[in-house]
């Protein structure tokens, strides 16, 4: 596809995220389709790479407080932005630390991977990854409490992303409530 392997690694290649997901899906299909007449049907035609002409980037590790305008300001340095979709908390509809940036051309998206991914926005190192394209529903966090999954059980305190992981916070709160309840009980008995 790209000719011989380069002597220097490229920064504009997608992470293993999509190839991994795809492989899993294929394996599952293989398992499920064992009784089908032609289990290898999809192997006959080489699969179209969904990222070959990707113009969209997934952008991660944003602060919850980073605004659309800030994203525009930085990402416009690689080309005009066609569309920006902020990742939102599924319940509160507030930014939850990721977004999708769509450019007009594939080249702009690749350049963004090379020149902006891994640099800072709003004083945080951000992560970019090529994405096959935004579909409705993907703007919401998929964690239990509405945000991103990584913010559920995170053990470090990240001020830009709501402190501790939400599941941990919740557990601690509950613990504290229980204790208070006992205290109150104790007080009332007195």
């Amino acid at each position: 596809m790209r000719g011989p392997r380069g002597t220097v690694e490229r920064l504009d290649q997608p992470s293993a995220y999509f190839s991994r997901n795809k492989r899993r899906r294929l394996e599952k299909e293989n398992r499920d389709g064992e009784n089908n007449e032609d289990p290898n049907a999809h192997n006959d035609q080489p699969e179209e790479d969904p990222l070959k002409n990707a113009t969209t980037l997934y952008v991660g590790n944003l602060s919850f407080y980073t605004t659309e305008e800030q994203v525009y300001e930085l990402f416009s340095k690689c080309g005009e932005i066609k569309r920006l979709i902020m990742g939102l908390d599924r319940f509160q509809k507030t930014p939850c630390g990721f977004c999708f940036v769509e450019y007009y051309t594939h080249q702009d998206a690749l350049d963004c991977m090379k020149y902006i991914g891994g640099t800072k926005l709003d004083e945080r190192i951000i992560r970019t990854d090529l994405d096959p394209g935004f579909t409705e529903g993907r703007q919401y966090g998929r964690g239990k409490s509405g945000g991103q999954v990584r913010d559920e059980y995170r053990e470090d305190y990240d001020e830009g992303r709501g402190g501790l992981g939400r599941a941990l916070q919740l557990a601690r709160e509950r613990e504290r409530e229980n204790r208070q309840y006992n205290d109150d009980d104790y007080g009332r008995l007195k």
Partner: protein
Amino acid sequence: MADYDRRGGSSYNPRKRRYRDDDDHDRRGPPPAYGRRRFDGPPPHVRVRKQLIAIAENPMRSWHDEVTHIANLFTDNWDDELLRGNFVDLVLQLAVEQPLKTPFTAAVVLFANAARPQVVDMLLAKLTARIEEKIGAGEWRDVKLYLKLLACLQPCLEGEGVFPVLEELFARAVDLQTASSEDTIGTEIVKIILLTLPYVMVAAPGKWTQKAADLMDKTDIIASEPHTLQTLVDPYHPEPGDESPPQCQSLIGLLQSQLQNEANNGWALSCLPRPWEFPLSEVEQRAKLEDAPKHALPPIKIPETVVTGPRPLFPEVYISVYANQDVESVPPLSNAASSLIRDALVDTINVLDYNRNVTARHLIDLDCYFAPRTFAARATPFDKLRDIEPPKSTWKPEDVAVDAVFSQLFQLPAPEHKLVYYHSVLTEACKLAPAAIAPSLGRAIRYLYRNSPRMDLELAHRFLDWFTHHLSNFGFTWKWTEWVDDVYLPDVHPRKAFILGALDKEIRLSFAQRIKNTVPEPYRELITEEKEKDQPDFKFANDDTPFAAEGREIAALLKRKGPDEEIDAVIQRIQSQAIDRDLDALVASTDVFVTCVLHIGSKTLSHVLAAIERTKDRLADAGAASDAARTQIITAIMTYWSAHPGVALKIIEKLLNYSILTPETVIQWALTGFAGRTKGEALATAHVYEMVFNTVVKVTGRVRQLASRPLSTMGDTDEAETREREVSAMRALFSVIQSALTAWESGKDVDMADGEGNSDAESQQMVKRWAERWLRVFRRRATVEEAFLVEAERERARRKEREEEEARKKAEAGNADAEVVDAPAAAA
């Protein structure tokens, strides 16, 4: 999919096992019995590849050790077919991917030649084919890089080696230059010849001085003559009265005189590495190299007509941000080292745009790739350079590296890659070696800040953009105190304009409160309270504003998505009231409506875009109604978002996409309307420049796209028509810009009726100067675009010729084969 994978599954590294697939089973086979386990290491082809790629990276290893080691590893395993084939390809690949290493890989080849001369023949066959191919395609940098490799192999070539190739190239350059004084391919070829020559001279010392002198006699005519287009790419634009305008020299003119110096000095070229030289003690190795067989260079066919290639060519000038220091921290212009080191670094930077980390690494390690003692020790503080005793070098490797990146960032008309790439290289270099790089950047910033008023305006804005982006990656820390006095200058002063522009850009990447905390007290006054508000005030909330009630009504209607008729009714009311008050009815209603759309979309850009999407028909109608109304759309946006011009600019950009606004409207608003209201001081405002510049880029980008689109056989005439239309629209736009600016430059528009004192005259003088700088930028852009169109036209003609040629061939082949083909076709 495999080669898309970042995990590099195909590389050989046993420690990376854990990164393999989860379902990967253990491939090592049964564990050997304890004590008998033997570690073979990776196979030779893997070891050679790894070592060759990393050649010269380790400063602790002597070059001749490393070179002989790799060469021996290669020749000892000559029977390994995989290794033999890969080796040649890898050498060629390294030449164009990691140009700093070329002399070192060449040394490996020279040494391998002693044991296995066949390898050189294999290499030369491929290398000459590549050179031929790249010349044909006009990929001049690759031509240069391959020729550099060839030049380093000069000692193992028969006859005159690389010289005949250089001479033939020169013959082409002469033809081109005599045909046209604006030719740039000939200039490029001469540059390549001059940059190849030094490598021949260090590879085969003492042998070719006469040949070199002959060649340089010839190049002198082209190289020493200033190019007609040179003023176009001059980074400086000093005022007429400037007493010491910064000197800017043509790259090839400089090279020619530097090499002349070298020739007079017996081609010392002390900065270039000579990894093929062995210490005197290694008698055996030296003898081996001496006696190694020579090879005939396969002929390289150079086509009669050469082409510009994918990248437009312009003459180049040498620029340094460390000029005129009291201690030389970079090689002086008189020394060939300045050009040779710069050339190798710039190639590295531009070739490796796909991995800025590696680029930065090469820049930090640059002293590994040049002769020992070329530079002072890394991270020597600038003040300590003074203490270095004369024969030792005072060149700071960090300064040389940073200078090379800036030379690209400030390349006119445009560098090879997007500007943000060069930002990112400086960011990474700063992250890799903050203690070494940061002070160098600091001195560069001071130089640029001092000189930005006399720089080309486009470059001054590139500096502004880089500076703010860079600070945003390093916690917005800068020693603002040293510029504090400039805060009190008038806004129209270029240095004050820089400060205002920088604060605004910083805020756009962050937020007002944060930036306020990073600057000393006097600067904080410049960040107004409005900038700290998330959403601007809605002027119709105040009853004193004309049409306040109507404004609120429309906002409410828009918010609850009320029916069009109701909005119509309110707009009617505004218009009739406006007529009563002797106002332009369309302007009044447009102002109210646009302000309301902005207000309901004030929360985020998504909100305002959604609001525009819903109201785009009405906005388009308003814009189409009259020029004044269309201009009012921009006025309303710029007024509403006056504290955050960045947001306003983005909204205007979207309205241009919807064709609600036209490029002319934007230009007129900025250069006539707004500039008029501010007595021309708008020209000093960074975001006004940005607005005009972005609009022009948008228009020219569209024209370029149309001009370089491959012809479809069907809609030929349609396409040509669209193209013509867009091209003439672009030309019209440029002339609108130029006539507006010329008025400011000549001072005609200046209304001195209210006769103020000196301060006003002074600021008018500055306005004139701004107009002069603006004019140069947009005149250049117009010229560059015209040049692009000419080249695109040629390319279209060439493509058409090729296609016709192919079609003819196909037709001929078809006729000949028709009878033969018939039979199987019938069978199918």
